[in-house]
């Protein structure tokens, strides 16, 4: 899980024209809307994703948005058995892009996510404060002050990647990853905030923990959050955490 490091993002290439398409191997086509994480790019990614889910081209079996890209996974033999499946699908998607898809607005839903910051729940909070030359209270205040938008899920089920964070709390990933990050951990890196749905090793800076589960197969959809949701983190006490704990 590496993410954009703003400081190093100086493209060595000449300016590219977006959207562009490329083959991700021989069973996946990717549409790229840009090279850096940006609200306008996110809106395009989510709009194309929504359109493709409603109008899947022949042979497409999965549509997967990431920060700047939309991946279409397909069964080549269902696209065409005579010519090049990739080129046929690229023609179809190219026509969709040329005609344009309806733009969906950024997140109609606003969600308040409870977080208990610091202590055993946020082992890296002190370190983040030190690196940002802030007090821990200021880090918590900045993390709860402004809304972030859910860009994508991919690390584990329902595990959101949301941003942008206030520039004063932008820190890189840890140089030494944690061997175990507990489920529900709220972590930041490179201007994004994430929530670990399952306990796993992780390189992000863990500043708190939410009592919420982000994924449950009995829900429809099984994710608690949706693409484009606007998240606002709300600090809660450890007593409140215990009363809300879903893990």
């Amino acid at each position, binding site marked *: *899980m*590496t*993410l*954009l*490091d703003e400081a*190093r*993002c100086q493209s060595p290439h000449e300016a590219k024209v977006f959207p562009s398409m*490329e*083959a*991700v*191997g*021989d*069973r*996946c086509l*990717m549409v*790229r809307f840009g*090279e*850096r*994480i940006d609200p306008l790019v996110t809106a395009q990614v989510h709009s194309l*994703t929504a359109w493709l889910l409603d109008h899947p081209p022949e042979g497409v*079996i*999965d*549509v*997967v*948005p*990431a*920060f*700047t*890209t939309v*991946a279409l*996974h397909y069964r*080549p*033999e269902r696209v065409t*058995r005579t010519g*090049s*499946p*990739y080129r046929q699908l690229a023609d179809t998607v190219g026509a969709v892009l040329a005609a344009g898809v309806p733009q969906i607005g950024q997140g109609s839903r606003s969600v308040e996510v409870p977080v208990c910051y610091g202590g055993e729940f946020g082992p890296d909070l002190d370190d983040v404060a030190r690196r940002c030359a802030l007090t821990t209270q200021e880090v918590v205040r900045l993390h709860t002050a402004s809304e972030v938008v859910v860009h*994508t*899920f*991919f*690390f*584990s*089920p*329902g*595990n959101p990647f949301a941003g942008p964070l206030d520039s004063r709390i932008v820190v890189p990933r840890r140089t030494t990853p944690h061997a175990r990050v507990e489920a529900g951990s709220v972590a930041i890196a490179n201007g994004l905030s994430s929530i670990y*749905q*399952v306990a*796993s090793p992780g390189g992000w800076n863990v500043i708190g923990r939410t009592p919420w589960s982000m*994924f449950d*197969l009995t829900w429809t*959809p*099984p*994710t608690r959050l949706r*693409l484009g949701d606007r998240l606002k983190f709300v600090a809660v006490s450890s007593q409140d955490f215990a009363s809300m704990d879903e893990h």
Partner: protein
Amino acid sequence: MMHVDRPGLFSVLQDRGRYGSQRLGVPVNGAMDEWSHRLANILVGNPESYATLECTLAGPSVTFDRDTLIAMAGAPMTVTVDGIAIPHERAVLVKRDAKVIAGKCPAGARAYLAVRGGFATEPVLGSRSTFVRGGFGGFEGRALRKGDRLPVHEADVGYAGLRALLLRSGMPFVNGPAWRAHSPAAPGGVLRFLRGPQWDAFTDEAHERFTAQVYRADSRSDRMGYRLQGPALELRRPLELVSEPVNFGTVQVPPDGQPIVLMADRQGAGGYPKIAYVISADLPALAQTLPGDSVGFGEVALDEAEHAWLDFERRLAALRAMVLEELQEVPEPFLHATPLGQTT
């Protein structure tokens, strides 16, 4: 019902993967060796989308509570029924309560057990593939354990006359017809690849090493990815990328320069530079590679990769057509059936 007397090293239900939910952060999973998974299903007349039991390195011991048509495909695991070896990649009708014992693999890594009618566990998000880390899908979201009882959809024995033969013979099993399946294995252990999106970001030396040297599968290789060891692949300069789509066969290179080929349990996106994509038709050969085995890489163009895949599909379709001349396909409704006692 299939009773598990011994679970084997790591035996999990898998099908063609949980496509359609990656945008929720749910990985695809599915069979590592898609050829052998589909072949095993074809041999017993199942739709190729049905779950098979993927058995890694050392197989399970099981019994069935009625006469059942089964087939093993993939790694040539030694399989006996009441002590007598059964043929590989051929349907056999196994007598009820006979002990089916899958032993070690003299070659390859994974064998696929298909059971006519299909395993009848409840699909999750449209698939019976096991997602071990998430704890769902397959059989209770985990590898089999001793004492497990797996539901199997009720089905006929398939080949008319085979049951009468079984009764007359007094044997614990009888063989179905032999079919020749022509596997599209990668020639000479070389995995064909397409250039990845960051190919140009790697040094000329890295290109040379990747295509001319051999890499050894590391012992930490698993269903998530094959970790390869060999000459380090270096970037011209450090590169930080926004995470973007990856697929089965994507070759990513972390900062230590040792490539990882992403496999069935991969995540949907990743941020390491991608030097290559192993073509889909050669993934079954990679999935049968053991830790310590060597692999090489040879570049091809997209057209060749696509031809190889369409050829892969044609071979399976041709075999299926032949088999279905003698064996009735398990009817489609089983695909959507729910376990007994449950209604939707």
